[in-house]
């Protein structure tokens, strides 16, 4: 049985369940190791008039107090644009921004130093909303645009037009392991950094920049993360830089571990969006044209905001054909911590917008939202070109919709929901089917490359190293199975090693759901190179054992742990024997594979009127979900009763791991659209900065019935026929939100119900109160008619 397609446990599972897996703060301290923390801004926007470290320096146990003046490279950095200041100079740009790095012998000294730092500030106006940023034209980068056809004219000729604004709030990653790094100084200005990061190469490069050393002086190693979800893509660099600076300056090992409150207060989140749109449609709900302007809250610096906006704009179509479209995207510059990557990377925000539009069109026309979605689905062979010009070649959405509608018993349940809402005075029910079509590949073309190192040892055991980082998603297990399948040996003969920039250089972040695609493909190439040598060798070796055949490399087979010539299958070597022979015969047993995704391109100005266009994605992962909810009218308590998910994820390398991505992403998406509320004080202080006040889903919130399936279809363009699965199912959490919106239709009368995302109990109660009071006011008028 091939190693690919098998449901084997996660390669770290045994360590996880016994507590033996090592995370950064579990690493025993070395002699002289220092603790690192930072003094950060407690105000959102201010001028620094003075900073006095005299008293702090006197605190016993304080070894290093570093400010921007101690940086050995320029203070500016950033993953896309170098616009971020890592240590405050004369202006605080967001609450939580680091000002002074403290290295000390113990926690007590750090706290005392923090208390002894004197800073004088002159408060400046803080921009703390998209609205205010728009008023002041405070933006990051240019407004981007995707355009097809004449929207203005089409809207004018459309039977119906809805014009509205839709707001979705941010989301905290809430990885369980907070940001962490340990730096070990090495000889000759070299440094080794262990970082809980999704992007070791970026950590390496940024550290080199701030230490003023060439990149080859820094090694960044990532064994694992206790969760990432995008929050450790660009923002793991900050702690790693801080630990490295202290280690570099003091020549002592230095460890930084954020506590949960500081982590939540100081790091960026999923971008809130406030989108204005005008949508034209016919009597069946078929969209004729969509005009939309997306505004995201980028926070104080660009970070990954421009890439997030690109993905949001590229996903406003989602599963639906928009014949005429004009979408713009503007990033607002505010005084919040820079918002950053979060599973979905703008995709969910774009998709939420169009799924909301589907519900609104249906509400406007008094139709079943599923019917509206169906008439708008991308076609097969026609109506299959995205607004940015990419052709959808593998549209499986129709099959998914048809199967899911039946398997979820949608129609019957919807009529039961409608009946329930007519009768119940105490509860409301809602049901919705929402879809996802998620583009796979980094929007940014050059990131779509990877390298892998495969080493076979003389006993036939294998080590693989790639740029992929393990954050629980199982990429290491996938790669292990892919490599094992290349030689058709058992997966337990392969170990995937900690990610290290020493083994794999210039790697891309483990992001965009594509770590297995990119790194798995690179590993396959490395295996193929080794196999070439081994095949040649085996051909000669086996032929020498059998009198009547000539060496024929093309006849050599690797099967079930054996190697043989297909013409004489009984004369066979074990893989291990062949490896030993290869070594004795000086045949290479280690290779590096390099992979670059073919056929991608993207331009911000190659489209009509200098708008964006291209072919940014290799393929699309698709799916849909039906969710049913029950709402307590008085308390707003929301219960997700049943969820049915059906996706197209190709042939997964490991079905168990793929399934875990589906359930995990869906529930994370459900959290985003329901209970996860980021609450800020007027001055920008984050009030919900720990699990006491920020509520991610609990096990009791999981749906009573949770059916998770995928259609059986190989993806011809990707490694082993798989499709990426990390992010897309998160977008299906929107079906829960849509179900709430649908439920509100039964109380909002002729009005299209309004609903902010997340649909928290507060939002639901306040919306219900609004509609009920309107109904009460209307009563006399009703009585007259």
């Amino acid at each position, binding site marked *: 049985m091939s190693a690919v397609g098998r449901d084997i*446990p*996660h390669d*770290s*599972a045994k360590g*996880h*369940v*016994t*507590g033996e897996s*090592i995370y950064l*703060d579990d690493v*025993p301290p070395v002699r002289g190791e220092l603790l690192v923390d930072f003094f950060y801004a407690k105000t959102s926007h201010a001028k620094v008039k003075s900073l006095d470290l005299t008293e702090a320096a006197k605190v016993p146990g304080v070894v290093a107090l570093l400010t921007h003046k101690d940086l050995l490279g320029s203070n500016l950095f950033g993953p896309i644009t170098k616009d971020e200041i890592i240590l405050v100079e004369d202006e605080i740009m967001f609450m939580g921004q680091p000002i002074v790095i403290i290295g000390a012998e113990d926690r007590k000294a750090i*706290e005392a130093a923090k208390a002894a730092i004197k800073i004088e500030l002159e408060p400046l106006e803080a921009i703390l909303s998209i609205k205010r940023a728009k008023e002041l034209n405070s933006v990051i980068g240019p407004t981007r645009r995707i355009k097809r056809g004449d929207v203005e004219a089409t809207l004018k000729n459309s039977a119906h037009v809805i014009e509205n604004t839709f707001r979705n709030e941010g989301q905290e990653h*809430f*990885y*369980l*392991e*907070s940001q962490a790094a340990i730096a070990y100084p090495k000889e000759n200005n070299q440094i080794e950094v262990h970082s809980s990061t999704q992007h070791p190469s970026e950590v390496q490069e940024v550290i080199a920049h701030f230490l003023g050393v060439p990149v080859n002086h820094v090694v960044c190693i990532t064994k*694992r*993360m*206790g*969760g990432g*979800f995008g929050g450790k893509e660009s923002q793991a660099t900050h702690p790693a830089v801080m630990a490295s600076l202290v280690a570099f300056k003091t020549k002592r090992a230095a460890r930084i571990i954020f506590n949960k*409150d500081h982590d939540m207060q100081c790091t960026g989140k999923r971008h809130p969006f406030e989108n204005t749109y005008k949508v034209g449609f016919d009597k069946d709900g078929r969209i004729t044209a969509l005009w939309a302007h997306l505004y995201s809250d980028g926070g104080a610096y660009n970070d990954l905001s421009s890439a997030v906006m690109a993905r949001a704009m590229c996903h406003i179509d989602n599963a639906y054909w928009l014949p005429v479209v004009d979408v713009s995207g503007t990033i607002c510059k505010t005084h919040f911590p820079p918002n950053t990557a979060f599973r979905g990377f703008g995709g969910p925000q774009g998709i939420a917008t169009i799924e909301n539009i589907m519900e609104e069109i249906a509400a406007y026309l008094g139709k079943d939202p599923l019917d509206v979605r169906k008439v708008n689905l991308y076609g097969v062979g026609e109506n299959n070109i995205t607004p940015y010009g990419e052709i959808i070649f593998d549209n499986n959405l129709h099959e998914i919709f048809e199967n899911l509608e039946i398997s979820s018993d949608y129609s019957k349940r919807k009529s039961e929901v409608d009946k329930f809402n007519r009768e119940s*005075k*105490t509860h409301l029910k809602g049901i919705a089917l929402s879809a996802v079509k998620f583009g796979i590949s980094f929007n940014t073309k050059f990131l779509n490359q990877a390298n892998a190192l495969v080493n076979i040892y003389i006993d036939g055991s294998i080590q693989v190293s790639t740029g992929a980082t393990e954050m*629980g*998603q199982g990429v290491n297990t996938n790669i292990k199975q892919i490599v094992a399948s290349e030689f058709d040996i058992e997966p337990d003969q392969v170990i995937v090693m900690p990610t290290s920039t020493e083994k794999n250089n210039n790697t891309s972040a483990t992001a965009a759901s594509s770590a297995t695609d990119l790194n798995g493909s690179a590993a396959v190439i490395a295996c193929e190179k080794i196999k070439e040598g081994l095949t040649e060798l085996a051909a000669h070796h086996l032929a020498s054992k059998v009198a009547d055949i000539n060496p024929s490399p093309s006849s050599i087979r690797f099967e079930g742990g054996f190697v043989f010539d297909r013409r004489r299958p009984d004369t066979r070597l074990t893989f291990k024997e062949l490896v030993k022979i290869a070594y004795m015969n000086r045949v290479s047993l280690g290779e590096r594979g390099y992979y670059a995704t073919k056929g991608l391109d993207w331009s911000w100005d190659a489209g009509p009127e200098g708008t964006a266009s291209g072919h940014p994605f290799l393929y699309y992962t698709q799916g849909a979900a039906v969710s049913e909810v029950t709402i307590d*009218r*008085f*308390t707003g308590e929301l219960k997700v009763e049943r969820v049915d998910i059906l996706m197209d994820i190709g042939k997964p390398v490991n079905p*168990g*791991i793929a399934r*875990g991505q*589906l*359930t*995990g992403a869906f*529930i*994370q998406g459900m959290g985003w659209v329901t*209970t996860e*509320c980021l*609450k800020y004080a007027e001055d920008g202080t984050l*009030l*919900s900065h*720990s*699990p*006491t*006040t920020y*509520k*991610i*889903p*609990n*096990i*009791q*919130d*999981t749906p009573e019935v949770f059916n998770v399936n995928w259609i059986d279809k190989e993806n011809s363009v990707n490694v082993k026929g798989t499709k990426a699965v990390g992010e897309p199912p998160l977008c299906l959490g929107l079906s829960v939100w849509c179900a709430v919106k649908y439920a509100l239709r039964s109380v909002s009368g002729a009005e299209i119900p309004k609903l902010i995302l997340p649909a928290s*109990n*507060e939002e639901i*109660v*306040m919306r219900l*109160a609004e509609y009920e009071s309107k109904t009460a006011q209307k009563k006399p008028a009703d009585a007259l008619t």
Partner: protein
Amino acid sequence: MRDYLHLFVNGKEHKISGSEAFQPLSTFLRWGLGATGTKIVCEEGDCGACSVLVGKLKDGKIDYQPINSCIQLLYQADLSHIITVEGLKQNGHLNPVQEAMVECHGTQCGFCTPGFVVAMCEYFDRSKSPCAQGIKDSVTGNLCRCTGYEPIIKAGLNVDMAGIVPLSELYPPAEMSKIFAKERSESVLIKTEDKTVFLPANLADAAKFKSEHSDAIIIAGGTDVCVVMNKRAYAPKVVMSFGNIEGLNEISVSENHIKVGATATLSQLEAFVKDRVPEFFHLLWVFGSPQIRNAGTLAGNIANASPIADTPPFLFVMDAVINLTSSKGNRQVRINDFYKGYKKFDMQADEFISSVEIPLPAKGEMVRLYKVSRRKHLDISTNTAAFKFKLNGNKIEDITIAYGGVAAVILRLPKTEAFLKGKQIELDVFHQAAELAVSEITPISDVRGSKEFRLQLAKNLLSKLFYEIKEGRIAACQQ
């Protein structure tokens, strides 16, 4: 007087004295013993990653419960056997819970996993017939951000029950029990330069200590005060921790009331009231998490005096009585008279709560308790409400109402109560009552909800009560 702590971790004996005794249990495990399987995430008992089993002597056996080790001070673990995730293997092999978690993909990033494994192992040690709801209930106090929980539930349903070695066999209790029983007769006093902790062996010692140290703060379960220590650098100089007082954790029932000892945990109470006051049982089910309820106490919930505490509204409508003890003797205060302002009480510096008496609902009385929170489980309430009432046909004969989360203290609503008395059970009546109710409260906006939301809830809960009465969903007490 003993001047050290005596405990066991994964079967190994430890005696601890001096400043080490004052650290959180989790810190001792991770840094003192290098047992880093126990993870620290929130340091406030809201994620469960630091869960360990605490075994205490009970009827000659060791009774294990999962608790959050980050909000448990080491001195609270005196005379306990702590089992961490490292101590759960059976003969060097994965136990059936660990095995199922591996096979069913119950772990992804793994950071929450030790906590889940610990909590589930206790469930499978206790439960004879595991079910999905039981599994969920056992890990309500554990957050996972990766799996969506479905694989964890599946793992629970696939545990090989036959392969489970009971904890009492993994760690034979005989020797530990003997030590605990012997050591418990003596009070413990540990002093450092700037800190003192006293673990009285009996109430008399406790009262004496309190009369001599009026500044001593009292720890029953520590689930609130330890959070303040972790998060706001609260460092009390003198602490008296009640865990070793024999009998103080008893719950008893007489003809018309339940008496709850000061160290009786909310879990004990939950089990005790299950059939006696089902409505209170349902409220306790959504109180914090198992880990919190295994440590937290009713007395602590009262003494912490939070206006959003879950149990006081019920105690208010039942007119519970608080027994205060001091070296001068005992004194009783009605809970309705106990609170004198935000975190202020009718309690002298030398007094402490030794027990609480809760009257049982009388025959024909109905009790309804509401807790509104952003998330149903493992959350702190936005609003709470307790209603005790009696009906006479379609009329309200009598009603008592307490609201939480709507002012600096828990409030009774005298005007609303008076208005409703003798009224017909009609929606319009309850709507009028709702308008009165909002005139009696002064909620504020905070992270758990806006003022407007709280006012709306205050009204809505009366409507909810109306419909539930109308639809016959509230049972009257039969005895």
